[in-house]
């Protein structure tokens, strides 16, 4: 009787997982396996039902292409710089907000506002505001930059970094701020009595207590920035030319503008393999927090 109940319990546990499993298999696992298979074929729009098997041909072409290397390098540089800027800004602003002041609740809402707007809409918006001829923000900044050509070669990378910082710093902020709220106020008061100034309190009291969250946020941000697509696609579309072509734009162009699905799949699997180890590490860290 008892054994029967335990067995029953196991079956119910599985049945409850059935819908999510079906969804993951049909719309994630199966397409990915199909994509992996495509990466070994010369598959274009006209022969997609009967593509030619070419073994590692796509991968070989990929590693020989200067375009692919340049895209990886752009993404890597962007991820490091964008993440550093946003971590520093996010931490400083969280520290500023981590005290009581009038109107604080509204101030938090307004700071989170740029984060809930779609990155694609944000990119489109900045494309207008930074336009060389009609962009009001480009005009405002021209006093500092000396030009309104903010999407030209000289300034386009900074423009993207700025737009992404506005869109994504609130994410860092809200994680750090929530963590800071969990730090006991008594510890802070005690260190005040000991004569620590605000900066020393941040470095020696708050940071060690929230280091694990900072680390997870940093990694999550780094991975997301490395794969940035929507904001850049709307803002510069990888241009001028392929000057701001990161790895995601590279794949998008190959797949949906040149219809070279085999090559694009090879690039996306190379990317997935590169990201697998840091991603698995991050998932492990997050799971530890949930359980």
């Amino acid at each position, binding site marked *: 009787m008892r054994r029967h109940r335990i067995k029953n319990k196991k079956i119910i*546990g599985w049945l409850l997982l059935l819908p999510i499993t079906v969804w*993951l298999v049909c719309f994630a696992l199966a397409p*990915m396996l199909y994509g992996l298979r495509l990466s070994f074929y010369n598959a274009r729009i006209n022969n997609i039902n009967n593509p030619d098997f070419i073994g590692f041909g796509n991968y070989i072409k990929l590693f020989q292409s200067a375009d692919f290397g340049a895209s990886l390098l752009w993404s890597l540089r962007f991820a490091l710089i964008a993440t550093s800027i946003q971590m520093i800004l996010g931490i400083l602003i969280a520290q500023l907000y981590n005290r009581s002041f009038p109107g604080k609740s509204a101030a938090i809402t307004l700071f989170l506002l740029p984060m809930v707007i779609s990155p694609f809409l944000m990119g489109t*918006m900045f494309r207008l505001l930074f336009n060389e001829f*009609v962009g009001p923000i480009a005009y405002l900044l021209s006093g500092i930059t000396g030009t309104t050509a903010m999407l030209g070669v000289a300034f386009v990378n900074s423009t993207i970094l700025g737009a992404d910082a506005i869109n994504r710093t609130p994410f860092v902020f809200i994680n750090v701020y*929530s963590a800071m709220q969990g730090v006991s106020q008594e510890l802070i008061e005690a260190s005040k009595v000991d004569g620590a100034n605000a900066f020393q309190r941040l470095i020696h009291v708050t940071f060690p207590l929230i280091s694990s969250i900072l680390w997870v946020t940093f990694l999550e941000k780094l*991975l997301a920035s490395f794969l940035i697509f929507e904001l850049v696609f709307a803002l510069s579309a990888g241009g001028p030319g392929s000057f701001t072509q990161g790895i995601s734009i590279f794949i998008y162009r190959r797949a949906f503008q040149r219809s070279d699905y085999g090559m694009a799949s090879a690039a996306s699997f190379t990317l997935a393999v590169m990201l697998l180890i840091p991603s698995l590490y991050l*998932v492990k860290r997050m799971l530890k927090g949930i359980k």
Partner: protein
Amino acid sequence: MDAKKKRIFGVILVLLLVLVILIIFNIGVFTNVLTSFKSNVDISSSPPKWIFKPVLDHYLHVFSKGGYNFGKYLQNSLIIAIISTLFATLVSIPAAYSIVRYHGLGDKILGATMLLRLMPALALAIPVFLIFNKFHLIDTHIAIIFMHTLFIIPTSLLLFIGYVQDLPIEIEEAAEMDGANIIQVLTQVIIPVLRPGIASTAILGFITSWNEYLFSGVLSFKNSVTATVGTSFFITSYQVEWGPMAAAITISSIPTVIFIFIAQKSLIRGMTAGSVKG
């Protein structure tokens, strides 16, 4: 007296800093809304005008322009976001319940959904486009709904796990004692108790779907175009219609902005799910 003065000065300084930060982070959104109310002459005037006579032309244009059916795009966004959120909720609640109360396979599924969140979306977009194309599902609502559900699931699952963990197991045990089966426990005990949590999770799901661009864009060209994708239609090879574009962006952003004002707490819980307890 001196200490009090110092404190007041400190508060003023903090308020000033907060104000400057808020201006910098929101000037883009603000300027975009301004642009949407400018006449075409005012938009192209240099230096840009900050004070002008507001006109509604672009908003009227967006809704009435021949062939450009923004009302339809908004309707598509609404249908897709609501159904995707519903599917994701129906799939995630039993899964979360299983992960918390029945151990085993669930942990692997949880790991897989979290990994999905970090993987390059384009690795999925290419095969999904080709498969849906084969099944003649391109430019249908259901194609986009299938994919948006997939992207809403990870955050929903994380949130529901948290909510179920907070429930006392005793009420479920009492229901089971009374002879309720698992379906009855879920529908008559768990779901009613979780109602507030479900509502805030649904808001996050709605925003995820509403804001998504890559899959909505790749999987549609006419009938199932969403508002987010539709804003880019003002950029053609011949010209960019800045005014209507600014108006379309403003309209498309309204639902998400409303949600952040009414549901800030749940939004924060969703955004920090996974990392805060880590």
